């Protein structure tokens, strides 16, 4: 288990006055201080970690968020922001001495602007809520994380959420136009808007995926797209994962970018099929779902090309969806893969590394070795188009030592991802979960460069501490130079 920063006694001793101060800002039920009522907030999607916060506050206006943050800044109190609490990396895990700032009451859509193809929403609106608001006119919001029915757009901004369609349509960062954000000092700032490019630094790029460490988003402007006229899916089974990986590479190599391209391995196929009866073949090692969208003429043409490539690569089963129901059925198994695995194992631990696609066979075979070493089964679902791997490690938390073994196994998988040229996390975030693995990917200088960004926004380190960065530094220390003491006056370089 990853250790959280030791609680500050001096803050805990002031708890009563802190609660009173927050009640003065947010009246009524907006401040929750009893253990029982705070219980729902003790954990997020990473349920292995639990901690009751010092107090929960649920503001309703940007002005309240500003006052809360200013109060916390002036009094040295830590703040953990939270959307719907669906983070799989512990991004909104509370701190014993911290205020949990729940943004759930920011649940309104403020502006729907079809001519400029933009929606302005409060951060507590769900991802799917945005699409629901515009689908009557044939529009949708493209990023679609599997938790889209529950996860909020504010949380999506915090985590730079992806989904199954991001190879073609991008991640959150490619689909957000602007935010209103409150800094830890209480200052309200805006980055971006309905225009495409700002002058000066592109702060939006920093905010998106910053995991609640830079500020609290109070409004989000997103780009919406017109729904493609048709979408068809292809279900292809392969005798080996190598063949499936080869097929993915050839499809892209031929210049085809499918709307979605997902792979599942044999254990994941079996679990999904048993759960939703999607009609998946059970005698294949790898299953590929390829979705093509656009005008019918385009879908039809590309479907034929993809089918030919798949056959060339040794596909043993191949089905094209003939109706919208059938297409959704193909997807149902994939979208339910996590709960499906949850049915066959008391607990599972979901990983999220990304690898260069060509390394897939190597990574899968090494993962099988690790599975034997740790004595735990693993099922794989894979965003094959963009190399984002979700190994699900099966374990039983009630068995002595299994959680620890699952975590060690997971860490080894992520080290493997980095070793082959990939990264620790593709879309779930570093959070608490992968915090201590950051040095596998970044050295001290790399991390210090990122910490300087943190210091520019939050000089006291009060926003979501204990997440993302393995070591906490005082910002004042960041000013020191730690390399090069030499007095070289640049002697070797040619001058003109």
């Amino acid at each position, binding site marked *: 288990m990853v250790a959280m920063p030791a609680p500050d006694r001096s803050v805990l001793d002031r708890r009563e006055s802190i609660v009173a101060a927050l009640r003065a800002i947010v009246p009524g039920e907006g401040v929750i201080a009893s253990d029982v009522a705070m219980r729902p907030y003790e954990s997020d999607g990473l349920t292995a970690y639990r901690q009751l916060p010092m107090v929960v506050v649920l503001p309703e206006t940007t002005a309240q968020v500003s006052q809360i943050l200013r109060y916390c800044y002036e009094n040295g109190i830590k703040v953990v922001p939270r959307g719907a609490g669906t983070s799989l990396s512990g991004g909104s895990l509370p701190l014993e001495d911290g205020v949990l700032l729940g943004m759930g009451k920011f649940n309104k859509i403020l502006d729907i602007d079809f*001519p*400029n193809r933009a929606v302005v929403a409060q951060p507590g609106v769900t991802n799917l809520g945005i699409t629901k608001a515009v689908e009557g006119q044939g529009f949708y919001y493209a990023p679609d994380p599997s938790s889209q029915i529950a996860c909020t757009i504010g949380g999506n901004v915090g985590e730079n959420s*992806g989904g199954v369609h991001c*190879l073609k349509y*991008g991640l959150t*960062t*490619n689909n957000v136009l602007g935010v209103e954000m409150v800094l830890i000092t209480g200052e309200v700032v805006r980055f971006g*808007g*309905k*225009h*495409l*490019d*700002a*002058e*000066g*630094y*592109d702060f939006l*790029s*920093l905010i*998106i*995926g910053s995991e609640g460490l830079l500020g609290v988003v109070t409004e989000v402007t997103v780009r919406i797209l*017109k729904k493609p006229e048709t979408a068809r899916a292809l279900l292809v089974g392969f005798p080996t994962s190598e063949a499936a990986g080869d097929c993915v*590479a050839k499809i*892209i190599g031929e*210049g*085809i970018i499918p709307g979605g391209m997902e792979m599942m391995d044999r254990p994941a196929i079996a679990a999904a099929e048993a759960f939703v009866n999607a009609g998946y073949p059970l005698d294949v090692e790898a299953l590929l779902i390829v979705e093509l969208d*656009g005008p019918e003429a*385009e879908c*039809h*043409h*590309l479907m034929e090309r993809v089918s030919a490539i798949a056959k060339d690569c040794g596909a043993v089963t191949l089905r094209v969806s003939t109706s919208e129901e059938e297409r959704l059925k193909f997807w149902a198994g994939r979208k339910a893969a996590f709960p499906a695995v949850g049915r066959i194992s008391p607990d599972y631990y979901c990983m999220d590394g*990304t690898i*260069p696609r*060509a390394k897939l066979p190597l990574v899968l075979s090494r993962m099988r070795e690790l599975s034997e070493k740790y004595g735990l089964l693993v099922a794989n679902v894979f965003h094959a188009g*963009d*190399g*984002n791997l979700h190994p699900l490690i099966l374990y039983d938390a009630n068995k002595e030592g299994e959680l620890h073994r699952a975590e060690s196994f997971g860490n080894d998988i992520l080290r493997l991802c980095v070793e082959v040229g*990939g*990264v*620790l*996390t593709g879309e779930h975030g*570093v959070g608490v979960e992968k915090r201590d693995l950051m040095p596998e990917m*970044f050295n001290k200088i790399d991390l*210090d*460069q*990122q910490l300087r*960004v*943190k210091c*520019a*926004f939050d000089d006291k380190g009060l926003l979501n501490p204990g997440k*993302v960065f393995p070591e906490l530094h005082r910002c004042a220390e960041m000013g020191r130079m*730690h*390399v*090069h003491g030499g*007095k*070289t006056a*640049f002697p*070797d*370089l040619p*001058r003109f």
Partner: protein
Amino acid sequence: MQDILKPRDANDVAEAIASANESGKRLEVAGHGSKRELGRATQTDATLELSAISGITLYEPEELVLSARAATPIAEIEKALEARKQELSFEPMDYGPLLNKTPGAGTIGGAVACGLSGPRRIKAGAARDFMLGVNAVSGRGEQFKAGGRVVKNVTGYDLPRLFAGSWGTLAVMTDITLKVLPRAEDCATVLLFGASDARANEAMAAAMGSSCEVSAAAHLPQALAVSIEALRAPGKSVTALRLEGVPQSVAYRRTKLEELLKPFGELGALDAGASRAFWKSIRDVRPFADGSERAVWKLSTTPSLAPAIAAGINASVGAQYFYDWAGGLLWLEMPNEKPQAGAVRTALAGRGHATLIRASAAARAAADILPSQSRMTHSM
């Protein structure tokens, strides 16, 4: 003429910056210097010329990834991509013609640092949307990396994206890893003739809000439409909408788009060849590449507000202008070398951003061309 430091590799860059840091010297960061005349004149003690930090270091078409040293010529990258039927989808513009310099110069580092994105920006995204990873040297002379080589990556802050459009003020990039995409097999452009600015704006919004997957949308008022050869414009304003994809799809969407635009007026079309030439002209702001030093501004705003902003500036100073990005990008050429920043910003009234792109050296030295900087910019 000030000192020019020519590092051979990233270690040299680090050493040069560390040494400059120690002695309190300020460095101008340059690749080919092709965009040196953009914006305000720098006041520096030496130039860090990166031209030797060049070459493609990794290109895996099936992984959609390319890495290159920062001063690799854009032309070299585009050639390598073209051989595998791929491209830089953000269509980086070539400032050569507009700035009265040789066309076709410039480096990938320069394009990224200046955040150059062309007409396809409205569909494919900006330069920053293609940034996957960087190796860079900080102002302290420390070499660091950020990001990676895979598309899906949320490990740490997205510094590679931040560096796009940071004009070399945050770090000196030495290696850049980009996402690349397949080139469309076919393209065509549907033209609408004679629409007013307001009507053209509506037509572009209707096209962008349709399922036609328009990959570029520009409007040239009559005075400028005649300047573009590919158009052979009949003395009317021209609104142009580009479609790209497989031939079957382009043909279908073209019919559909023409149906949609019929109520807006007389229609025409450009085939694939003419289409490519036309959008290159728009990308490179050819209508204002007139060899003059008349001030040119680039305005980024909400698309539907653009006609009113253009009319406001036109009324006060009499500028020439055209729209790209379905109205979200407004290119303005002032009547003379004076930038008239006050008039531009007054008309914009906080509804977007204005950047001075071309002006005489004297005008560029003046303080009023810069917008007010936020506190966060200073902290950063």
